[in-house]
């Protein structure tokens, strides 16, 4: 279960309101895409979901509990860049999450424990189609493959929420299409709740079960920072077979 409630959320920086009056109920297992113009607060919203920042007012609840004050394994993230560790190979990147969980002192597994972790990681790598690149370093992978790795690395910890910050923004159109298919398949298999920030309307409507647009409804021309953005459109999409066609 991973139900998200956003209760009257405000986010202010000195002299600037970024988000105001955001209220949301997100059911478990939905695929939410956040869109809107630059600087409209969608990335800030994602950062709040990740606890990289604390809201000025209001709260975000995950399964009825206020979010912990720092990032943790219950919420996985894939950034547009720098999501994987450059000094680790593909397999090492993926088992890292298991090593953090199972070896508090060294953060490294050995012997039988390591073999078990490698088995799990291999399955995960296979599910994102990176088997052939298992022992390569991220710098030897293409952009799309790096993002596949970032997703595999995140999913091995079985997070409740998967947060995607413009993950496909830097990819070419062909690769994007493959990533959409992969993301959708994994989302269905893992029954995970996804929040994805995107610039791309087509991408949003391809992937989402729900599109949330952020924008300012009140504008004071003399003080642009006076009012913040909120959710202006909340579009649930009936999407079941839509994927097969996409």
């Amino acid at each position: 279960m991973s139900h998200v409630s956003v209760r009257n959320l405000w986010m202010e920086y000195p002299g600037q309101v970024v988000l105001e009056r955001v209220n949301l109920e997100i059911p478990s297992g939905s695929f939410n895409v956040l869109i809107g113009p630059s600087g409209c607060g969608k990335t800030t919203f994602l950062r709040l979901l990740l606890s990289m920042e604390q809201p000025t007012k209001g709260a975000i609840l995950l399964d009825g509990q206020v979010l912990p004050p720092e990032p943790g394994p219950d919420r996985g993230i894939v950034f547009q860049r720098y999501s994987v560790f450059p000094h680790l190979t593909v397999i090492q990147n993926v088992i890292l999450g298991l090593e953090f969980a199972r070896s508090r002192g060294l953060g490294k597994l050995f012997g039988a424990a390591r073999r078990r972790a490698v088995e799990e990681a291999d399955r995960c790598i296979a599910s994102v189609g990176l088997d052939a690149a298992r022992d390569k370093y991220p710098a030897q992978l293409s952009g799309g493959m790096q993002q596949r790795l970032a997703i595999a690395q995140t999913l091995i910890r079985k997070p409740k929420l998967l947060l995607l910050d413009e993950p496909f923004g830097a990819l070419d159109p062909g690769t994007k299409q493959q990533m959409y298919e992969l993301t959708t398949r994994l989302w269905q298999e893992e029954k995970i709740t996804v929040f994805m920030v995107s610039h791309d309307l087509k991408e949003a409507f391809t992937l989402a079960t729900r599109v949330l647009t952020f924008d300012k409804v009140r504008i004071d021309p003399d003080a642009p920072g006076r009012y913040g953005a909120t959710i202006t459109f909340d579009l649930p999409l009936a999407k079941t077979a839509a994927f097969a066609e996409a």
Partner: protein
Amino acid sequence: MKHRLINLKPGRGGKIAWGALPFIVAVAVYFIFSALRLAENPNDKLLPGLSSFGAAIQRVAIDRDMRTGEILLWLDTFSSLRRLALGLGVSTILGLVFGVATGVIPYARAGLAPFIAVLSMIPPMAVLPILFITFGLDELSKVVLIAIGITPFLIRDLALRVAEMPGELIIKAETLGASTWQIILRVVLPQIVPRLADSLRLSLGPAWLFLISAEAIAAQDGLGYRIFLMRRYLAMDVILPYVAWITLLAFVMDWLLRLFNRRCFPWLTAASS
């Protein structure tokens, strides 16, 4: 075909030839002037010729010293390298511990960064008398001088390198459930050690400077001690080979550190290709 100067590139052999040229010119100029001076005065000590070098090298590097029964060059090299290794070793450990701590932990940064910034402005040679007074004239004060001279640089450089790491990587590690300790051990350290080797390469010059200065002032052996001792006798035939030897040692250390990076961190080469 006409080419701009910036587009004219030497080939493989050309690179070697052009690289060797300044060395050949320097050596040639030296021996021409040496020959000229020796022709005028066969006892000239300023620019000794090949035969005096040969004799001097025989004296310091092959024959045993009449007074101590030691081979001077090896004795000096051993003493100097031991001081250098101890100084560099202590600095490396301190630099790594404090550099990573100030880079990763905001409270360590708040508490230590200003102090280290001020500390690094103290000219190390100015505290050498204090070191001689407190640690005595033997090994310890020389090692401490090297450590004081390069540790603040290493700490600040490493803290900068840690801060340069994309914040996304740290956040990512947190979402994988890592503790602060695990982040340092598995994410920060492995990426910072190659940077440490680079910082150390840059520190080699200052480290040698401090070593030779300390040896020049108070020592019973060491490469710096010998050079300054020989100065009294205008023994250029010993000083020049010693300088060449020190240069070679420094060059080899630099090369070894570079090799260490290339061999031990395949991901670095993968990233740069």
